Structure formats: C-alpha cells, structure tokens
C-alpha cells in the first residue's frame, strides 16, 4: 500500500528510483554487513594462506568459545546483569522525576527541569563521561568533598563498578525519562484525584493507576536503556577498572588487538541476540506490543 502511494505521488520513474535506493540501502548497509559478520563468525581464524584451504570449514567454535572461556563467560554474564542493574536504577531514579514533572510540578517548574536535564546532552557522550572521570578521580572533587564533610577518611576508588554504573545511569537517563514522562502526561489527572478521593494510598495510586497507564512508556525506556547499556563502550572504558570489564571491550579487543575478527563477530552477534531477547522479554513482561512502543 505504501509502495503504491509512493508511485502515485512521484510517478513510476522517480518512485522507482526511490524504491531502488531504499532497497540498495537496506541490502548494502544493513543486510550485507550483518551477513558478512555471520559468515565471519562461523569460520575459524586462519592465516591468509590457509583461507580456501582444507581448514576453512564452517564451525560453531567461535560461539562455544564464549561459554568455555570462564573469564569471557563471567564478563558476558556481568554485562547482562550490569545492564539490568543500570536499567533498574535508571528506572528508579527516573520514574519519580517523570511523575513529578508530568503531574505535580507547575508548567514552569517542569520546563526548567527539562532544560536542566537536556543541556548537558548537547555535549557529546565522551566529554560528558570525561566529566564524571574528573569528578570521580582518586584525588578528585567528590573524594575531597566527602572528606571535608568527614563522611569518609580515606579517598575512595570510585572507578570500577560504581563508576561505570553512575556514568551509565547518567548517560541514559533521558532515554528513560522521555518515554515515561510522555506516557504519564497523557494520564488524566482527574483519575489520580478520583483514586485519592476513594481512599487509595499513594502507593496504590501508582500501582493501580499510574504504572498500568504508563507501562508502554516504561517498557520503551527500559528497552532503550538496557540496549544502550549493554552496547556501551565509553563509560566502561573511562570509568571502569580492570575488574569491571564490559563485554563490548572484549569484542573490541578481538577485532582491533587480538586480530581475531571471527571471534569478535561471533561475540557481537551474541550481544545482538541478547538485546533482542531482552526486548521480547520486556514486551512479554509488560504485555505491550511493538506498535505501542513505536508510538
């Protein structure tokens, strides 16, 4: 139908050209690289002279390697768990904020908060994360501040799990905030008043009225945040420590340092499959369909 509409609008000539360009884009930029990745991932890592030789056979070794190597497996599981934690913390921080902005604050207050949150995002992700890098440094302002207050007497090593978590929560907060804020905004305020009037506690109002109404927004925010966190490179690279390596760093290493594209491709595809599984699980869990999320 969309295709017929396109041809009616631009005529068969121009319409055909547009269609061919779109097809080329999908094949050239989406399909082909992914198929090549798939192909790579199913081949062993060989010297150039061996390619095409008897050792050049399809194999699942690159995939099974992840689960047989205890270090990589641990990092993979930690990335999954860490991303889930980032998602949960971001949700916990964002939901009250989104509710406040949508239903409690004056129009002016909500707008001021929105601007305060958006402005830092005009700076790119690397620089924003560098700001955290400076803030959390061993001799940095946070430690000095906490020491002067007497809360700690030794500087704390923030880099590592804490640093990565903080950096990611901050980096992805808007991706969680916007969908939730949007969906709560569409809730009729009188419904909250009515629930309150009928004697419902604040907790019950959220559990029975606000959250069910906002669940598509919440699912969208969680999916975004999880995928961004799982695929994050900057925050773990800058704010992490050797003990807090992220799965993306392993992939990077296979491609650019280990020189094993095949293994890298397999790991990257596993991450992709994981993210898709999370999306589907989240949709199931929240009982929303893809069309609601796309809205």
């Amino acid at each position, binding site marked *: 139908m969309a295709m017929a509409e396109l041809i009616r609008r631009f005529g068969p000539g121009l319409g055909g050209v547009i269609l061919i360009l779109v097809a080329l884009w999908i094949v050239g930029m989406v399909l082909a690289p992914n198929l090549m990745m798939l192909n790579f991932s199913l081949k062993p890592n060989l010297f150039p002279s061996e390619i095409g030789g008897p050792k050049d056979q399809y194999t699942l070794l690159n995939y099974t390697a992840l689960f047989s190597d205890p270090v990589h497996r641990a990092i993979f599981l930690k990335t999954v768990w860490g991303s889930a934690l980032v998602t949960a913390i971001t949700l916990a921080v964002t939901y009250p904020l989104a509710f406040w902005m949508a239903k409690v604050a004056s129009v002016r207050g909500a707008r001021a908060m929105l601007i305060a949150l958006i402005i830092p995002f005009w700076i790119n992700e690397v620089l924003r994360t560098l700001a955290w890098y400076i803030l959390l440094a061993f001799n940095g302002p946070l430690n000095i501040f906490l020491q002067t207050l007497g809360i700690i007497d030794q500087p704390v090593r923030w880099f590592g799990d804490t640093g990565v978590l903080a950096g990611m929560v901050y980096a992805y907060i808007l991706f969680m905030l916007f969908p939730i804020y949007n969906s709560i905004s569409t809730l009729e305020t009188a*419904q909250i008043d*009515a629930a*309150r009037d*009928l004697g*419902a*506690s604040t907790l019950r109002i959220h559990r029975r*009225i606000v959250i*069910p109404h906002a669940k598509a927004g919440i699912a969208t925010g969680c999916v975004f945040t999880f995928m961004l966190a799982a695929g994050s490179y900057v925050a773990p690279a800058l704010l992490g420590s050797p003990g807090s390596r992220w799965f993306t760093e392993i992939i990077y290493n296979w491609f650019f340092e280990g020189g094993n594209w095949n293994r890298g491709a397999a790991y990257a595809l596993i991450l992709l499959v994981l993210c898709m599984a999370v999306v589907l699980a989240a949709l199931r869990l929240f009982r929303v369909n893809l069309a609601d999320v796309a809205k």
Partner: protein
Amino acid sequence: MSHSVDLIDVEMVFGTVHAVRKLSAHIEAGEFFSILGPSGCGKTTLLRLIAGFNEPTSGKVLIGGKDMAGIPADRRPTAMIFQSLALFPLMPVWENIAFGLEARGVPKAGRRKKAEELLDLIALPGYGNRMVHELSGGQRQRVAIARALAVEPQVLLLDEPLSALDLKLRQHMRAELRALQKRTGVTFVYITHDQSEALAMSDRVAVMEAGVLQQIATPQELYANPATPFVARFIGETNEIAGKVTGVENGLASIDTAQGSFTARAGAGVTAGAAATLFVRPETMSCSRIAMPNSLPAKAVSLEYEGALAMLRAETDQGQVLLATLPNRQLADAPQPGERIWLSFAADEALVMGAGDGHG
C-alpha cells in the same frame, strides 16, 4: 445517616485569581443542593474545597459539624463524581466500582459482591466484566455514581456529571439521580451551569457569579423572588426596564422609566430617588389593544410558535425589545406584526431592584 456541610467565610485565591470570595452556606443533611453559575464562576473550586483536594485560603469547611481543616480527600466522608467521570479505563467495570473498597482492604469476594449489588442498583446487572470503553455514555455515568456510592459517603459531590450527555439522556438521568438521592438519603451537592437542571432536581439552589454567592433559595423562590439582578437574568427569561424610584409604600415601588411609570414589588434595599431596574418575566406580561394600569405601548414585531406557547416580540417607541409569552388559547386573537398593542403586568408579579449590585 448523611451529613450536613457548612461553609464559613470560605475564600480561595489562586495566585492573582480570586476564585471564591467570602462564601458562607449551610447545606442540610440529606438535601439535594445545587450550585448554579456560569462557566468559570468558581463552582468546581468550591466542590474541590469540600472534597479536600484543596484547602481554602481562609475560612472553614465543616462536614457533619466537624472542621475539615488538614484532613485530606482520602479521609473525608465525601465522594466526588468528576466533570469527566474519571473512570479507570484499564480496569473492568466491577473493579472500578470496588476500587474504594480495595483501598480499604476489603477482600476480593466481598468487593465482587458489593460491586454486583451496586450494578443491580444502577440497573446494569451482568456488566461487571465489561471494560469502560464498552459502555455507552449513560452507562458510564451510572458506573461513576456506583463507584462513588460504594464507599458509602455521607456527602456525594457531583461536578456537572450530565454535561457530556445528549438532551434526552440528560433528562432521563436527572430523574434517576433525583430518585437515587431520595432512596439513599445521601446529601448531594450538585454543580451545574444549566439552570433547568438545577431547578428540576434540587431542594435548594445556590447561585454564584464570579466567586460571589448571590442567593440560596428553593427553585420556586429563586424564580419568583430573585435577590439580585444577576439571579433575575440568569434564571429564566426576563424583561428589564431601567428607571428611577419615585416612592416605596407597602412593599410596592413606583418607578419612572422612559416607557412610563409603573408599580411593582420593591426588592430589598430599594429607596425613593435611587436608580433601579424593573424586571418583568415574559409569562407575566399580557397583551391587549387598550391601555390598562401598569401598561406600556409597543409595536408587535414577530410571533414565534413554540408548541404550547408562543413568544411575542414587541418594540417600544424607544426601540427597546420586550418579550411576552402568550398561551395557545389566545393565539386566535394574537397581534399581527406591525400592530400597535399594550403590554401590561400585575404589580405583584414584577420586581424593582437597585441598579447597583442589588445586595442587601
């Protein structure tokens, strides 16, 4: 039993907007009490003060004689029906109705049972498992009422609940609401900007304008004895003739106007020598071809049939348009457009009120 509501010098200010001004009223327990006024006059604000969504800037709200200061909406013995109904679209009808019981910790079986009872009461048995969007406007209306009644409120607050319905259904629901109020004995505080609704249903009506209470009276009293020019204009149709009072005697005022001199009942605070306005209802005007006491000359302009009645439009020599309703039986002899006639009225059916605010 139900509770009375007292408003004592209640004021509500939002920033620069003075939504309710020094308003005092007593609403009897078990009464059907309406608050009537044009859009934006502060009706919803007043209702929300009673419900406990807002605290008054000054003054007191008493329910059942108890001061409600500091008691939030969820702990007042009131239930509100919102202008938009505010039903919960993601819950089936029975959970909507039982929501207040759920909040009170009633177990599921008890909630379901109470919901079924209320569904019977509102004549929607078997509708419990429907979703709200599967109901018609009138059915939603009734579910909203059942949801409010489920918590057994002492006072039911209704914010223009019928405004979204079409005329036929509105008239039907009026009668139903009135019957429900009689049956349950709950105090109803009913907001509307539709005067016929207020007059048809209420024991007493409070008329508000721009945050100021104008009058509290029974519907009959409100119509026959409006306390202020605003009430006279707002309730029903009225003719107005401006003039100056020449004397007040035995409750009757004489007034000099550009159309002649007339005698009519004196409203409160009318004194000789003051500017005043004469108010005459169209149905108290009669039309004749000869001069009578209390009559003024005019020229018939048009006659509109409205079924049982006809509305005669006439113009005085000064160019003022006056209305008179003629009963059907007089229509055979009705004046033709352009014909010169006299319009007259009985002194005790017309009212002279001060031209100012009319308070006093």
